[in-house]
């Protein structure tokens, strides 16, 4: 048996003993910490203050909170104006609207100007649940990672989302932080390493690599435990920093494991998994299966039903792992 990585919560293998907290809560907590550390941090909300958890910041720093109403385009450009006047500005909405609706403003006024605008995309992925496809943003990773100057962070639980939010505030330039609506297991700790530009190996193994981001990292870990019972040791990588991506860790995984499964709660096209392929195809080509939304929209349902329906849970990862193992050279 491989030695367990000492990075995760002690009882990470036992879901019933883990707290279930939405990643958005970590965003709210991170905002407050960022606001304490730097009085130039401001937050703008487009009428979704409570559900994005921007409300934590509003309560702590009412003078630095701005209510914009349902106007995501002007919100993004106004944030850029504030940034050019010296502020670090988070804009909080649902990912479908920001960066969905206001992509051009983010491109021109945040990225091209290298402005200190941080886009907080709440309710990303299909685990939004009953609200349905209009609100289940699954194209956001694709449209943000392609932007020059933009950094893209997809944290795996509420603790990591807090860290990512604080890191975003400290970084220069535009950052996209993606998080989710529904509760998910808190399996990292305050001591789990986090750094922009770094992928974390959460479980070692060299039969294949499962590279995941967001709350599905936990599904990847559960799948790895199942595979282990079959004698297959999977390396599980938390690819939180979708951009800049940790080329070294990805290439090492390709070399050591020879096959990769990627999984994300987003379009498989042009997402995190595609970015992994961009790296491996150039440096060390190996078979990759990209799990995610396969060129289709979501629909209404309970979060867990939807993850099951779209094949994004541990049993499906196990199947994908077996498929990719057969393609190994």
């Amino acid at each position, binding site marked *: 048996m491989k030695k367990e990585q000492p990075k995760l919560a002690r009882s990470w293998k036992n879901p019933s003993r883990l707290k279930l907290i939405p990643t958005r809560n970590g965003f709210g907590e991170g905002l407050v910490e960022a606001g304490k550390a730097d009085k130039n941090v401001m937050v703008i909300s487009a009428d979704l203050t409570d559900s994005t958890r921007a409300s934590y910041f509003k309560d702590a720093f009412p003078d630095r909170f701005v209510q914009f109403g349902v*106007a995501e385009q002007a919100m*993004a*450009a106004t944030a850029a*104006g504030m940034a050019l*006047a010296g502020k670090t500005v988070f804009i909080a909405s649902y990912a479908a609207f920001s960066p969905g609706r206001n992509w051009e403003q983010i491109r021109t*006024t945040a990225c091209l100007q290298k402005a200190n605008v941080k886009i907080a995309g709440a309710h990303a992925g299909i685990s939004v649940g009953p609200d349905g496809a209009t609100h289940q943003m699954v194209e956001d990773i694709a449209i943000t990672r392609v932007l020059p100057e933009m950094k893209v962070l997809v944290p795996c639980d509420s603790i990591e989302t807090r860290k990512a939010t604080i890191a975003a505030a400290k970084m220069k330039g535009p950052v996209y932080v993606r998080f989710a609506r529904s509760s998910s297991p808190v399996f990292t700790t305050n001591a789990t390493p986090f750094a922009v530009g770094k992928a974390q190996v959460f479980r070692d193994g060299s039969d294949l690599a499962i590279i995941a981001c967001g709350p599905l990292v936990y599904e990847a870990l559960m799948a790895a435990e199942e595979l282990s019972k079959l004698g297959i040791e999977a390396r599980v990588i938390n690819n939180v920093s979708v951009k800049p991506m940790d080329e070294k860790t990805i290439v090492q995984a390709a070399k050591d494991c020879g096959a990769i499964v990627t999984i994300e709660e987003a379009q498989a096209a042009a997402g995190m998994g595609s970015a992994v392929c961009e790296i491996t195809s150039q440096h060390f080509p190996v078979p990759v299966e990209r799990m995610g939304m396969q060129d289709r929209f979501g629909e209404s349902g309970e979060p867990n039903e939807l993850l099951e329906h779209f094949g994004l849970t541990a049993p499906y990862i196990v199947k994908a792992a077996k498929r990719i193992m057969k393609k190994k050279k």
Partner: protein
Amino acid sequence: MPSVRDIPSITDKKLHSLEKKANLIRQDVLKMLREAGSGHSAGPLGLADIFTSLYFHVLKHDPKKPGWSDRDRLLLSCGHVVPIRYAAMAHAGYFPKKDLMTLRKLGSKLQGHPEVTQMKSLENTSGPLGDGGPQSCGMAYVAKADKLPWHTYCVLSEGDLEAGITWEAAMFAGKNNLHNLTWIIDRNNIQIDGYTEDIMPLEPLADKFAAFNWTVIEIDGHNIMQFVDACRYAQTIWENPVVIIAHTVPGKGVDFMEFEPGWHGKPPGSDELRDALRELRTLGGTIESESE
């Protein structure tokens, strides 16, 4: 309340010098566009009197210290008219006039649409219509909240006013009483596809802004006295943001360009440049050699 520098009233002597300066700046705009071989002619010429007034009378600024923190902020929303801004800035001393001839060329700071990363004193990047208004709101919001002693100006075109984002920003400015913000609308009634009132009528424009809780001033955009007075008046308003609707003639100063939508988005050829310069020099009261 932040103290904003009073804009002085204008003397006859200053008025004449500004008119002359505007004429010279127009000439440079045409030469730049000819050299670049692409770009917009009508809008920049129509805004020459306003940009000359801004850089040589209205704005609190120092070309030798472009990063001065207390400078007034002048943003452009309609990035396509940037040649007039470049020409006015060169005349004001921000960079050598010879640089104007690098407009739109590889490696130039004078990008086809303004880029603040190339030149900090441009204040903002613009081109996609509608993005300047909200950026000016963001700056004015910070200045008001932090009691900073500068004023924010933003020049917008009619195309900007067809974009919904501009009205989102107008709502925000009205809600937050951004009295330290002045928008200047270039109301020249042309855009690429034709006459604005045919393409998407904006009237009643003054009523629209008033309904968004703005104070509205309408002026002749070629009357420097009126423009300066409007900017002076805007500084006395403490309740609302102010919009100056400046009625301008597209292509102003060059007879064959005036009011012609065809001149919105193209530069002069060499014969056209010669004719245009001759006309402007005559307007300026000085007949100069064509070979100059």
